[in-house]
């Protein structure tokens, strides 16, 4: 069963983080990623550019509109994701809790929809 772990954090906090802490966070992410690769849980994962680079696209009445910024203004922003393989929600939440940003922001755990083949 696959779960998408969506990493939310305040971008402002990330931008103002002292360099030493930023380096530590980066190293923690490296360790975590290597760990879940070694344990076979890792499917994919990336960090995202900040929301000021985001563009939202929608079609209304047949017209495509393209606007600057994310779809919703929220207190915490989507900053990255992991796609993992886990046997159930308990295993997925346990892995999510090991993501370094879980201590700073929050992780949304979403099961990936499967279609009967």
């Amino acid at each position, binding site marked *: *069963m696959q779960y998408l772990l969506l990493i939310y954090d305040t971008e402002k906090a990330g931008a103002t983080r002292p360099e030493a802490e930023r380096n530590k966070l980066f190293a923690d992410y490296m360790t975590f990623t290597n760990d879940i690769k070694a344990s076979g849980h890792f499917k994919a994962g990336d960090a995202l550019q900040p929301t000021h680079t985001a563009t939202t696209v929608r079609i209304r009445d047949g017209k495509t509109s393209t606007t600057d910024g994310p779809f919703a203004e929220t207190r915490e922003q989507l900053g990255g994701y992991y796609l993992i393989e886990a*046997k*159930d*929600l*308990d295993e997925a*939440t346990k892995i999510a809790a090991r993501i370094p940003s879980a201590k700073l922001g929050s992780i949304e*755990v979403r*099961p990936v*929809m499967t279609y*009967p083949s």
Partner: protein
Amino acid sequence: MQSAAAIEAVFRRERARVLATTIRVTNGDFDLAEEAVQDAFAAALARWPSEGTPDEPRGWLVSVARNKAIDVIRRRIKLREIVAAEPQTDQGSATALVAVPDDRLRLMYTCCHPALATEAQIALTLRTLGGLTTEEIARAFLTSPVTMAQRLVRAKSKIKEARIPYEVPEASQLPERTDAVMAVVYLIFNEGYAATAGDAWFRRDLCREAIRLGRLVAELTGDPEAHGLVALMLLHDARRDARTDDRGDLVLLEDQDRTRWDRTQIDEALAVVPIALRGGSGPYSLQAAIAALHASAARAGETDWPQIAALFDELVRRQPTPIVALNRAVAIAMSQGPEAGLALVEQLAGELADYHLWHAAKADLLRRLGRHREAATAYRAALARVGSEPERRFLERRLAEVLV
């Protein structure tokens, strides 16, 4: 020859266990399992009157429900390779399957999984382990059956789609998860006990259901706190008839007719409290010990308040919430005098300013100190925040007393 009523009684007794085991077969699909269990019951109604009740009715029901579920799975997703591993037994000769494992515990932990909202946990527990109908749960919680049905559908779908595991949690998580189960049971009890709104009959039923579930948790986990919870609920429930008068007005503990307390239930609880306390005095056990001291006093004047205050000291250490602190203050007022209690009550002003019982407790202590004008102000403040009608009438009576 078996009457339908007798079969129904067997079914009511065994439903939760049969369902719990069937859910394991359906791999967490609650709906399919419920359907299969219903089919098994229909089969029992059709066959037991002529064929006789099987020696192992539970085994029979599990076996039939299991086969029904497997049939559906076979048809639905054609998982032949998985199902092929399951030997298909003849539905009639199910007596071969005697040892049915008790899966109710895993059902309990799944229903009370922290990934489900508390309301969903409560509804699901009552529906699956309690066997209440959706309409009954809706009536007890004053929501529409449609809302309640949606809540159940959403919870069951989350269990299935997010794959909430159907198992007893691992040892490291067990205490925390058992706490969640006990919290749900106690919420169900309080829903039936505390409020006087809604259908009285269903409220009483809800308390009984909570006690039954609590007994199940205590029996299956052996957790001393679960025993404490059962004792606590039994002791509260034993006072039910004496809590209100003929007009439905609230009667305070000190004014209750103690001959109307349910002695049998109290005796049962009193035997459990020492077992619970031996387990390390968790919050439920401590509250049960406090309730036991009240229940042991033949008259209100004989209540062992110093002992109750000491138990509250311990409770406040373990559960440092303002509400517990307020109760402790009241116990200290009873053992050391209203002045000592009032000083402690005043300290909680910041946290409990919006809580009607804080104002009521303060008013009561001022009244006992003869400071009637201040008491009246506090009663008015309590009245401005009170929700339930009997409590309002009680506070109005007290206000009238201090205004004389």
